[in-house]
């Protein structure tokens, strides 16, 4: 790209009266464009790691000074860039642990998402253009485009996408911090990932960036650093479990996309498999076109499927009012209660063993990366839990003081309506530490067949309904001699967790209404 005056880089021309006239070059635009891309680095590449953010921002500040120096002068450029840098590291890179869980704290979190460097780059580009006489039209047009892209698209997209996540992450951090204080040093290790240096995580993360996988990139750069995140990943689907509960609305043979009456029952097929419990369903439906909603009557509106049965039922949805001509969506909804699922967690109690011996056993019994997690069938909800020190370590030796962490997670596409029961059965030989201040599940502790069982039934619907994750807390465990100093070379055992819950499933189908006559 070359400007009409034939200059690629910006320059100066002497006028007839001896004044200096600034000339815009295409290279100048390229330079600013490059600067704009660089200016996203502190937020997107480095994130909120304070020290790394401060270093990358400092390098960026030097680049800005270098670019601005010619038109703004060295001191003015340094002053402006210095102000931006102070705002950046003082507010945007502010360590999350320093932010309180208050409304003011949320403002600070919002400020952390402020893309100050890209805005600064856009502003100085515009200033530079305005100071240049006869700047080419295309350069001004790019300036306008930058305003639109940066202010109207990029920043809101980043903000909307990240704000909720950031607030949630901050809440998670606060919960994890509180839990860590309750359970002591071993859990605190989970809060900070001290094992992989930042630069190594960055190197591993870069390939995701090139693939355009921002989530993979962020997860690799900032791996699970707090306890809540670890708990959230405490379960994995067991591929060998082929029997699982299934409730789904599908388009059966009876379904018709086009109906020719204002009030015609729309048939939708329901596929149900219930290998674990007898389940009850309440079915509702409605019709929607734009903002207009017409309630419908589902028939049958209640269903019971016995344990072990597999059924395919046709549910019809009858509109309670006339549907107007045009496209409508039928929204089917089922609240399924008495659903039951489980997860199992294997652990090895190895007594006194060398590091090599423990590694060998780990390779033999937990060869896959997700084997250390609770294994469960592929259903709507899982009760994920971990035991160990740290809880992610499946090999427990005679020096370990294991922790139990547990969480309920919604892994389906619907919503948790209610939790009716959870039960965690520890292997014989594991006990909760008898100190109520250290274990939130301890109130529900009992003994069954020599095993410690935590059973909780008094869930508050308001606290669980619609939640994606429901942390159940952390318990410090005592290991009895049978497991601590096993007579056998090691003991391979399993803990089990069960949950009974209600779940709401929704699905929409598009239809077209063309009333005859």
């Amino acid at each position: 790209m070359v400007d009409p005056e034939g200059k690629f880089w910006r320059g100066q021309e002497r006028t007839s009266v001896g004044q200096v006239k600034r000339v815009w070059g295409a290279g100048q635009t390229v330079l600013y464009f490059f600067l704009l891309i660089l200016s996203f680095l502190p937020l997107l590449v480095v994130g909120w790691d304070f020290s790394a953010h401060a270093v990358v921002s400092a390098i960026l500040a030097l680049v800005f000074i270098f670019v601005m120096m010619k038109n703004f002068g060295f001191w003015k450029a340094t002053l402006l860039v210095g102000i931006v840098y102070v705002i950046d590291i003082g507010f945007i890179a502010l360590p999350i642990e320093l932010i309180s869980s208050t409304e003011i704290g949320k403002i600070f979190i919002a400020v952390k998402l402020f893309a100050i460097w890209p805005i600064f780059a856009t502003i100085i580009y515009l200033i530079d253009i305005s100071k240049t006489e006869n700047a080419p039209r295309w350069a001004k047009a790019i300036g306008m485009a930058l305003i639109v892209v940066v202010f109207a698209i990029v920043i809101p997209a980043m903000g909307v996408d990240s704000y909720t996540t950031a607030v949630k992450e901050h809440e998670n951090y606060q919960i994890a911090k509180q839990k860590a204080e309750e359970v002591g040093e071993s859990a605190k290790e989970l809060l900070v990932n001290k094992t992989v240096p930042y630069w190594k995580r960055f190197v591993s993360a870069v390939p995701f960036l090139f693939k355009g996988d921002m989530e993979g990139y962020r997860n690799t750069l900032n791996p699970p650093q707090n306890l809540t995140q670890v708990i959230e990943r405490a379960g994995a689907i067991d591929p060998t479990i082929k029997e699982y509960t299934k409730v789904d609305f599908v388009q059966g043979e009876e379904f018709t996309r086009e109906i020719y009456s204002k009030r015609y029952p729309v048939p939708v097929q329901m596929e149900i498999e219930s290998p674990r419990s007898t389940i009850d369903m309440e079915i509702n439906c409605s019709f929607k076109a734009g903002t207009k909603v017409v309630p419908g009557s589902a028939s049958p509106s209640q269903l019971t499927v016995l344990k072990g049965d597999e059924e395919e039922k046709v549910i019809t949805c009858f509109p309670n009012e006339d549907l107007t001509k045009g496209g409508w969506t039928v929204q089917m909804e089922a609240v399924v209660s008495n659903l039951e699922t489980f997860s199992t967690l294997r652990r090895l109690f190895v007594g006194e063993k060398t590091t090599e011996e423990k590694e060998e056993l780990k390779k033999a019994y937990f060869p896959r990366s997700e084997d250390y997690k609770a294994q469960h069938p592929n259903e709507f909800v899982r009760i994920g839990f971990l035991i160990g020190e740290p809880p992610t370590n499946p090999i427990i030796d005679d020096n370990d003081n294991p922790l139990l962490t547990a969480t309920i997670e919604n892994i389906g596409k619907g919503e948790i309506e209610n939790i009716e029961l959870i039960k965690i059965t520890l292997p014989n030989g594991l006990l909760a530490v008898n100190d109520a201040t250290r274990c939130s599940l301890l109130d529900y502790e009992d003994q069954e067949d020599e095993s410690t069982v935590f059973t909780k039934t008094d869930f508050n619907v308001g606290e669980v309904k619609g939640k994606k994750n429901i942390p159940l807390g952390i318990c410090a465990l005592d290991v009895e001699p049978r497991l601590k100093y096993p007579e056998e070379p090691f003991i391979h055992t399993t803990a089990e967790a069960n949950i009974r819950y209600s779940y709401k499933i929704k699905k929409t189908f598009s239809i077209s209404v063309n009333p005859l006559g």
Partner: protein
Amino acid sequence: MTMKKILILFLLVLFLTSCNIIGGKKDNGLIATNFKTGTDGLEVEIVEGVPPDEIYEGNSFGIGLKIHNKGAYDVNNGQIRIAGFNEEYTTLDRWQSELGLLEGKSITAPDGDYYIEEFQGDNKNIPEGASEYIEKFFIYVDYDYETEANTDICINPNFYDIKSSLESCEPTKTVSFSGQGAPVAITKVEQVVSPESGNQVKLQFKLTIKNKGSGKVLGPIIVDEVKIANRRLQCSPREIDLEKDDTVVCSGTQSLQGAYITPFSAKLYYTYQTKTSNKLTIKSLKVS
């Protein structure tokens, strides 16, 4: 007559060959076989089909183990232990068993002694809804064993007069071995002669000890009965941990004299562990 002579000659040859008078080198070789070679010890093999590769849930199974002493020394004390079955799903009738006497290789048992031990297992169930569950298990065999090295070495105590003292033999500074019929082997013996007071010299033998087997040594190795001819040498250390060190120095004094050949022997005592693993697939009766 000729036929008779041929028949008598044939019978004579048959008699002589059957008595190893002619062509008896093989048997002579057997008599002279040194069983204290190689690095084998106790070996554990899982009897084929016991357990089978897979069973159905709720069924019983056996674990057949062939315990074979392929080394050159008897096993008097040891135990077999099985670990690794998930106790929530599978139980064994017992998880350990004492080893009986198992003789090492000898003329009477050139392949070493063996016996079969059987454990019984019961599967209770497998995880709910799973099509199968794989039970991995380890078999540990711990046993007391020994290693004995015997060799003839040439010693030259008279290092001041090398020329005349080397008339009978030439001293070997280092003797190397591959194995003595046990997993722990004395792999090298180095000889050092140094002056002592008066008419005496100090003989030092540095023994290098290695674990040449596939298992591991449990605890220390006791170095005992290191002798030249019938004379016991003092060893330091008396016990070694192969994880930390693999050499022992044994020493004694000797009067000045010319080079001579003498038997050298050393014995090691230790506990050795071999380990083998296997798996058993338990299939669901309900889910395929």
